[in-house]
C-alpha cells in the first residue's frame, strides 16, 4: 500500500502539497491499524480507550479464599479417614464402591487444594492447627484422626460420631457411614455457600471452578447416598 502511494506521489507533477496530504493520511492509517485496548461500560454507557501499556489484573484475593481451601483440606481428610474404615467393617459391595470413589476423588482434590495454596505462598493448614501436637507436615496423612481437633469444619463428624462409626459393623456401620457422609458432604455445601456469601471471596477463576465442582459433585453424591439409605430399611423388612 505505502509503495503505491509513493509511486503516485512521484508521478504527480502538482507538487509537494499533494504528497504531504497523502503521507499524512498514510500516517493516520498506520496509527489506526495499531490494536486498540478498550473497556466497555455498563449497558448504555460509553466504551473507554485504555493506554497501550495496559496489562492484565487478577481480581482481588480474599483471606476467605485461603481459609476455604485450608478448611476444605481438613474437611476432605476426614472423608478419606471415614472411607478407610469401610473394608474391615462392611461387606456391602455398593458401599465399598462408593467409598473407593469418594476416597479417590477427595484425595485428588486435597492435592489440588494444596497446589493452589502452595502456588500462592500460603500454608496448607489453618494457623490454629499449626501448634502443639497437631503440627504435621500435611493434613492428608492417611489414618490421621481429624476429630481430635477442637474446631471442626461444617458437617465434620464429632469425636463421638467417629468413635461410633469405628465401633460399628455390618448394616449398622453402613447406616452410620451413609448418615455420617451425608452430614459431611452437606457441610461442604455449607462451606461453598459460606464462601460465596462472603463479600470479595471466590473471585479467583480456578477457585471458582473448584468450588462449583465441589458443590455439584457432592450434591450428586448426597442424592446417591440418600437413595442407598432409603433401600436399607426395605431390605431388612424382607
Amino acid at each position, binding site marked *: 500500500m505505502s509503495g503505491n502511494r509513493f509511486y503516485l506521489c512521484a508521478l504527480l507533477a502538482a507538487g509537494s502539497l499533494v504528497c504531504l496530504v497523502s503521507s499524512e493520511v498514510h500516517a493516520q492509517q498506520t496509527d*489506526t*491499524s495499531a*490494536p*486498540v*485496548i*478498550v*473497556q*466497555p*461500560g*455498563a*449497558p*448504555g*454507557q*460509553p*466504551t473507554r*480507550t*485504555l493506554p497501550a501499556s*495496559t*496489562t*492484565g*489484573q*487478577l*481480581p*482481588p*484475593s*480474599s*483471606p*476467605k479464599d485461603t481459609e476455604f481451601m485450608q478448611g476444605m483440606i481438613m474437611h476432605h481428610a476426614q472423608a478419606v479417614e471415614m472411607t478407610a474404615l469401610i473394608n474391615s467393617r462392611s461387606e456391602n459391595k455398593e458401599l465399598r*464402591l*462408593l467409598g*473407593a*470413589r469418594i476416597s479417590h476423588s477427595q484425595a485428588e482434590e486435597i*492435592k489440588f487444594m494444596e*497446589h493452589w495454596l*502452595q*502456588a*500462592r*505462598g500460603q500454608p496448607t493448614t489453618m494457623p490454629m492447627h499449626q501448634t502443639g501436637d497437631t503440627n504435621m507436615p500435611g493434613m492428608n496423612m492417611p489414618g490421621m484422626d481429624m476429630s481430635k481437633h477442637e474446631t471442626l469444619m461444617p458437617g465434620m463428624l464429632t469425636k463421638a460420631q467417629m468413635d461410633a462409626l469405628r465401633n460399628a459393623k455390618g448394616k449398622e456401620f453402613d447406616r452410620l457411614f451413609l448418615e455420617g457422609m451425608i452430614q459431611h458432604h452437606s457441610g461442604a455445601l455449607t462451606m461453598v*455457600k459460606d464462601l*460465596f*456469601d*462472603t*463479600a*470479595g*471471596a471466590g*473471585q*479467583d*477463576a*480456578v477457585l*471458582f*471452578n473448584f*468450588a*462449583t*465442582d465441589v*458443590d*455439584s459433585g457432592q450434591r*450428586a453424591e448426597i*442424592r*446417591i447416598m440418600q437413595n*442407598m439409605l432409603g433401600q436399607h430399611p426395605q431390605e431388612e423388612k424382607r
Partner: protein
Amino acid sequence: MNQLRTNFLLITVAIVFLFAASTFAQTPSPSPTPAQPQNPFAPQPAPPLPAGMTGSDANDPRAKLTPGVDNAGETSMGMKHITLLKKPDAFDLGTNDPNAEKVNKSLSTVLGIADPSKVPSAMKLVLAGLGFANSDMAFQGNHLFLGNFYGVNIYDISNPAKTSLLTSMICPGGQGDPSVYKNLMFMSVEMANGRVDCGTQGFPPPPAPPAGQPNQNQLPAASKDRFRGVRIFDISDIKAPKQVAAVQTCRGSHTHTLVVDPNDKNNVYIYVSGTSFVRQDEELPGCSGGTPDTNPNTALFRIDVIKVPLAAPQDAKIVSSPRVFMDPRSGALAGLTSAAVHGKGDPSPTDQCHDITVYSAIGLAAGACSGNGILLDIKDPANPKRIDAVNDPNYAYWHSASFSNDGKKVVFTDEWGGGLGARCRPNDPNVWGADAVFNLNNNKLSFAGYYKMPAAQGDSENCVAHNGSLIPVPGRDIEVQAWYQGGISVMDFTDAAHPVEIAYFDRGPIDPNLLVLGGDWSAYWYNGRIYASEIARGLDIFELTPTDHLTQNEIDAAKTVQVGEMNVQNQQKIEWPRNLTVAKAYIDQLERSQALSADRISALRTAIQKKDTGNLKKMAPALEKDAGTAKSEADANRMRALADVLKRPAL
C-alpha cells in the same frame, strides 16, 4: 505395517529401558541430611489401565515432544502451522501485579528456585490459572472473535498469514465464550468477579478488622454490580464494541448458543447453559436452588432462553426456562440420570446442560448435558422440547455436540476430568474422555463408535476431548477438534462405527513438572484455514496439507465453501458449489475406496482436465446407476453427488 509395528516395539523397549536407567540414576540414595523438598507440584502418574481397556499410544511422535511455553517441540501430520499470535499484554499478568510477589516467594521457598525472575512463566501461568485463559471463538467476515476469561480479542484475518490484532476488549468474568450476529456480539459470563460495568477490580474484600477484633463481614456479598449471564455488545464499530444489554441469569452463563429462527427475521434467541451454583435471591430476585422435590422453582434442572429483538437489543430478556430434563409422564423435573460412570457408583440426576448445538435447518438441537446427551426439537425456538436422551457408562461428563452435515450423525464429547486433568496418558482408557459418534434416525440416537486422539500425552498435559467443527470436504464427514495440550486432531467419522484420524498438530507440554493449564480450547475450520485458541499461548492458524488420507483436491473443495459468519454451536447447512473442483474431490474419494475402476477414474479426470462438458454429462447416468450397487452408502452418495455436478458443471 507389521514391520513398522515391530520397529516401534523395539524402540519402545529401548526407551523404557533408558527411562528406567535414568530414573534409577537420578533417584537419590537415602541420606541423613534433609533432601531437597519434593516438588509438590509434580503431576501424578496415571492409575493402572482397567482390565480389558486400551490406553493411548506411547509410540506416537506426539508422545515425547520437548516442553516449553514459547519453544516447545512441535510435530504435525497433514497440517501446516502458519502463525502463532501471542496473547496481548493486556490479557496477561502484569509484573506489577500484587500477586506476583507471592508467586516468586513460593517459587523460592517451595521449589527452591533462587532467582524466580528466570523461571517464572510457567509458574505465573499456574497462579493466573484461568484468569486470562483463551476460550471459544466466533467468526464474521474478516474478523475472528477470540473469547477469553478476561474479555474478547478481535483479529483481522483477511490475510491469515498476516493476521493482526484489531481490538482488545477488556471485560472479565469467564468463560467469555463469544457469538456474533450481524452488528451484535454475545458473551458468556459466569464467575463471581464479573461486573455489569466490565470493571477489572472485581469486588473488594472487606477491610481487615482492627487488631484484636473479630473479623466481621461489613459488606453484603450480594451486589447489584455483579454480572453473571449473557452480555450483548454492538460491534458496528469493531474498534469500540459498546455494551447494549446484560441479561442476568441465576447460574450465570457457562456457554451459550445463538439460535436463529428461520421464520423470524426480527429476533434471535440465546440458549443459556449454566453449570455453576445458583446465586442468592438478594442479588437476583427469584433465584433459588435445591432439589425439585423441595423447591419446584429451583434454577437447577433447566436452561434459559433469551429473546433478542434485533431492532432493540437493549430489550433482550429471558422469555422461557425450559425444563428439558422433565419426565414427560410423571412431570418430575429430575427426569434424566447419568449412567453408572466407569462402572462405579450409581446414576445421578442431570440438572444442567454444558453446551447445546442447534441445527435449525433440520429443526433439531443436540444438548450435551453433564450426565446425558439429549435431542431437542427447536422448531419453536423459545420452547425447545426433548425428543430423545442417551447416556453411556464410559462417559463422565457430556460436554459438547456437533451434527454431521446430513443430520444423520451426532458427535458428542466427554470432558472427563473437566479439562484440567491429564487424561490421555498411556494408562488412560481410549474410550474415556473420548468422542462418541451416534447415528441419528427418526429422531432416535443410537451409539456407533468412540474416537479419542490416539497419541499418549504426558502427566503434565491436560488433555481430553474438546471443541471442534466440521471441515467441509464434500463426500466425507470430517471434524477438526481441540484436545487441550493433546493438540489438534482431525478425524473422519464418515463410518460412524470406525472414526479415524487423518491429520494432527501437537506441541510439547508447557512444563514437564507442572501441570499448567494450557492447550487448545477450540479448533475450527473457517473459510479455508484452521484457527485454534490456545489457552495460554495465543491464537494458532493452520492450513491443511495433502496426505494419503486427504488429497489436495479434497482440500480445495473444502475451500470452495465460504460463509459470512460462523458460530459453531449454531450449525449451518454446508452447500457446495456445483463445480469441477468439487467433482475432483469425489473422484479422489472413489479412487481411494476403489469404488470405480482405474479406467473410469482416468477417463473422468481427462474429461475434467479438458473441461469436456459434453463427455462429462454422458458419464453421469452410469454413475447414478452404479450408486445403486455401491459397496457403502458413502460411495453411493459420492457417485450421486458427482453425477449431479457433471450434469451441469459451473465452469
